[in-house]
């Protein structure tokens, strides 16, 4: 018998610290599988950001640098430019990438840096306990929007994939979900493509994951999974916004 599914070797054999039903684990695995598939584990330098995924180095069997909050694309720029043979990816949440690090995000994309940027959009701040994110849905209750987010005054959800796709230099921009097998299959291809682009020296790649945060959404994992389809995808349509698979 052969395994249909096995832990990728770019991930350490340790349990994740994430909450039950959190999609970080799936995103981690897809990234690790892509690294294995392309045979680039020895070249990868990952940039961890601030948020639930700050402990990236506990899970990925690759070199990791922990960046200041929001600065991962700038830190990644430094790594890649100083050591072009590296394969560099950043892994950032919505607070990190779309709020405090928006400038770094946009400018790295606009310079066409040779980076793979993985964006975990769960419309809320996870690690700090459920505050409003730039991607929080209109009406969504968070600890800092107790009455629900009002678009005027608290802002509309930032559409990062669309914003980045509007720039000229990025080579590949996609938004994926991982809340069912079909979506996971699409996401897998997008992640591989993001790395392949860098391996081939074709430039900047951005993959946004619509991701569930059952704990801060105050839902069961299954409810949260459904919420991705019912609430997130209508606001943040899935698809390839730039480049192709």
């Amino acid at each position, binding site marked *: 018998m052969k395994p249909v599914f096995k832990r990728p070797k770019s991930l350490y054999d340790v349990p994740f610290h994430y909450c039950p039903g959190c999609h970080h684990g799936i995103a981690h695995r897809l990234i690790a599988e892509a690294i294995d598939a392309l045979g680039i584990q020895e*070249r990868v330098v990952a940039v961890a950001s601030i948020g639930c995924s700050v402990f990236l180095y506990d899970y990925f069997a690759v070199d990791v*640098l*922990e960046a200041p909050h929001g600065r991962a694309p700038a830190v990644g720029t430094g790594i890649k430019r100083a050591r072009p043979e590296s394969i560099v990816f950043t892994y950032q949440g919505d607070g990190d990438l779309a709020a405090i690090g928006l400038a770094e995000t946009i400018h790295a994309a606009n310079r066409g840096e040779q980076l793979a940027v993985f964006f975990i959009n769960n419309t809320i701040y996870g690690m700090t306990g459920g505050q409003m994110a730039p991607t929080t849905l209109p009406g969504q209750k968070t600890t800092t929007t107790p009455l629900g987010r009002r678009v005027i005054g608290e802002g509309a959800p930032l559409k990062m994939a669309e914003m980045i796709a509007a720039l000229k230099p990025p080579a590949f921009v996609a938004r994926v979900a991982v809340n069912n097998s079909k979506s996971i299959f699409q996401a897998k291809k997008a992640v591989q493509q993001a790395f392949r682009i860098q391996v081939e020296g074709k430039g900047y790649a951005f993959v946004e994951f619509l991701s569930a945060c059952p704990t801060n959404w105050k839902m069961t994992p299954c409810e949260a999974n459904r919420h991705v389809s019912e609430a997130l995808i209508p606001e943040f349509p899935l698809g390839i916004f730039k480049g192709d698979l």
Partner: protein
Amino acid sequence: MRKTEAVYNRKLVKGNEAIALGAIAAGCRFYAGYPITPQNEIPEFMAGRMPAVGGTFIQAESEIAAISMVMGAAATGARAMTSSSSPGISLKQEAISYMAGSEIPCVVVNVCRSGPGLGGISASQGDYFQATRGGGHGDYRTFVLAPHSVQESYDLTMLAFDIADRYRTPVLVLSDAVLGQMKEPVYLRGYKGREIRKPWALTGAKGRKARYLKSLYLNEGELTARNWKLFRKYRRMEKEIRYEMYLTEDAEAIVVAFGCAARILKTSIQMARTKGMRVGMFRPISLFPFPSQALAAISNRVNRFLVCELNTGQMVEDVRLAVKPGATVESCLCPGYIPTPNELFREIKKRYLASNP
């Protein structure tokens, strides 16, 4: 011989250019920065020269991004530098703190202007506390080198890279608007140091286990151990303390100053000497670690000190801590403007005569 060297090997360059020349000579191959007066010659020079030496220049979207890029580059083992002036250095404190915590070496240049806020663009030493107390959040320090001439701007920048690598720490070169903008002949003697191996660098886990650089320590006791480790490192850095003693041997009073204030004071002291006043100068070159022991030794035989700085009194606190009890430490302060040698001479004279009637 001296004349020959003087004629053939000197170059007339700005202090800021000397810093850039020193960095490139020392093997700096990554620079990221953001425009701000009065340090613009550094990014401009780097933009022109880096590609020629196979290095990278990036004009970043902000001071914050610039230092973060330096953090990334330095983490791979490259010699990396950024520069700015006071308001920009405030922004850079974030990553400087992260690098101190992650033990990533780099060189940060502050061509200090006056503050607070947007302040002005004239020379100032208002960033002494920021420079010597760490500057950002957390229990850390950066090594601080303060040149007082264009030659030192060149020499100390090269040294900064060596110290940064040796101790895996950010090193700050604290220049100022006068030193950065002025031109002076410098001997471009080239880099005499040595680049060391960096077995901690993130180069991809080829043929070895994966590793990481981080500053987050949540497990019980880890952070305490980390902070003690950094503390011991800062103690070890005392080996690198540098200072200059100028006419101190027979001095009855000592002026303490650094950077451009010190060079102006040299003229004032010469003036005082011609009037028979036995005044000397102690010039810290490393501001952190501060040359406290050397100053304490002087205070065994001299007990009058005048601290002259271009702020409202910062280094004077370190001088007070250093000298033996009973010594008098006075301040002569020039916040936000450049004093003339005459002005400082009058300050010296006034105090000297008060104690030596």
